[in-house]
């Protein structure tokens, strides 16, 4: 009737490609990069990037699964070396992104007591983006939003 074939998991059978290696790394990469390129422009996702963190950690888990199945006994999957390298890269990316979100971006000096308590706004005259002088005193009689920003945008 039919021809009996090998079981497929024999020692000499070619092992299958381990796509989880790449899927894990790409997810981790996307989780970190798309925060800066896209999601940070939405205030809620910028302040608490739960979506980026979720994609990032799912990527790490897929990378762990890739290594797990590459090393399991009589595994039909390849990717022991690439999978391990991919997992290490995923973990480094995840660590850096979490450090940035939960630690580095808090690295601001504590505001001085004077800044928190002063009531009279110090006067100044500075040049605007077209080189025209602008004095705070010019705005007397109007409400002013005075904002300081980091620059280099």
């Amino acid at each position, binding site marked *: 009737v039919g021809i009996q074939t090998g079981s497929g998991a024999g020692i000499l059978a070619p092992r299958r490609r381990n796509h989880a290696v790449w899927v894990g790394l790409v997810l981790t990469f996307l989780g970190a990069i798309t925060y800066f390129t896209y999601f*940070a422009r939405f*205030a809620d996702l*910028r*302040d608490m990037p739960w979506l980026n963190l979720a994609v990032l950690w799912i990527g790490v888990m897929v990378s762990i699964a890739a290594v797990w199945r590459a090393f399991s006994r009589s595994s039909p999957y390849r990717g022991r070396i690439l999978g391990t390298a991919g997992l290490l890269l995923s973990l480094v990316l995840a660590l850096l992104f979490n450090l940035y*979100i939960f630690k580095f*971006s*808090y*690295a*601001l*000096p504590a*505001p*001085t007591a*004077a*800044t*928190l308590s*002063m*009531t*009279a*706004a*110090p*006067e*100044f005259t*500075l*040049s*605007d*983006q*077209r*080189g*025209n002088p*602008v004095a*705070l*005193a010019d*705005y*007397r*009689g*109007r*409400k*002013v*939003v*005075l*904002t*300081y*920003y*980091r*620059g*280099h*945008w």
Partner: protein
Amino acid sequence: VLAVSVDPAGRSLDLAKAAGLSYPLLSDPGLEVIDAYGVRHEDGGLEGDIARPAVFILDRQGNIVWRDLTDNWRIRVRPERILAELGKVP
């Protein structure tokens, strides 16, 4: 609205065009005004000292009536909050 940074006028002009900003972006390269308000962030930028993100609301007499000094440079006060606070100022 007045915005202050250490950026030179050319960079501020690029930013104003790119972001469609019509209000003055003021250059304080010597950080004199930034220091007057106590908002210097030492070595905060790639090129040295910069201003920390900060927002002050001034009433019509030039008094500071509200301020926000975020403790995280990613997390800034929302525009709606600033408008709400402005509405409370006579």
